[in-house]
């Protein structure tokens, strides 16, 4: 049986990769994908802990995280389409004004 800490370390590494991409990439779409990577990393740790504690709450929580991630992707991509319509640009450091 694989110890839970291995799963936790895997989830940490994935989270760090996602965080790096979110900070360093310029493309807004890739930044949204990095958010999905981070959410998936958290899901891995939740499922591993849920297996260790044999509790249903972890599985339910992962279910809700997936639901929220789907909603977040829909809204985020709608915002990206809106930004692209307005400015013809999807690179984060090109946006200098908060006012649309």
């Amino acid at each position: 049986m694989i110890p839970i800490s291995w799963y936790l370390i895997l989830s940490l590494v994935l989270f760090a990769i996602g965080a790096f991409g979110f900070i360093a990439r310029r493309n807004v779409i890739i930044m949204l994908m990095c958010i999905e990577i981070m959410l998936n990393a958290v899901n891995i740790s939740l499922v591993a802990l849920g297996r260790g504690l044999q509790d249903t709450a972890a599985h339910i929580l992962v279910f809700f995280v997936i639901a929220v991630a789907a909603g977040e992707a829909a809204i985020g991509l709608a915002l990206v389409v809106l930004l692209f319509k307005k400015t013809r640009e999807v690179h984060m450091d090109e946006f200098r004004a908060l006012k649309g």
Partner: protein
Amino acid sequence: METLVFLYLALVLIVTSLLVVTNRNAVHAVLWMLVMFFHQAVLFLTLEAEFLALVQIIVYAGAVLVLFLFVIYIINLRTELKIRNFHIYWPMAALVSVVLVVLAVKAVKEFCPGPVVGDMTPKLIAQLGQAKVLGKALFTQHILSFEAAGVLLLVAVLGAVVLTRRIRFRGEEG
């Protein structure tokens, strides 16, 4: 054997997520992410979470990634392949991420799991099936959160439609 499977899955997950982060082509990034999600579903299977593995494939691979692909096709990014795709300060971001990993791994290396608290024992799962156990918990104990998630998804769908619809003024041809 179990360890071998875990190491393979961990390796593929890390490599594909790195490819997603560093890829110049957004379509390739989405396809690498598809590989990553399938491997993560298998990882859920090794953790005895069959229901979540199926939800992972249906929701992420089936819905979210298709949404990403559609948006990438709407936004035709010809220039993306030629210009730099990282901010100028990316080494600092890499440093922060590496430090995060090192510190957090130091913290969880001594992790020892607590005693079993839940009721989702292998015996009960074998008796009832995992979907039944989870469904019972979802629709009794967590029913309020379930309703809230439904409202949230409805608001997300309506918000996406409202945000991206074409704004028409009165008397103007659509």
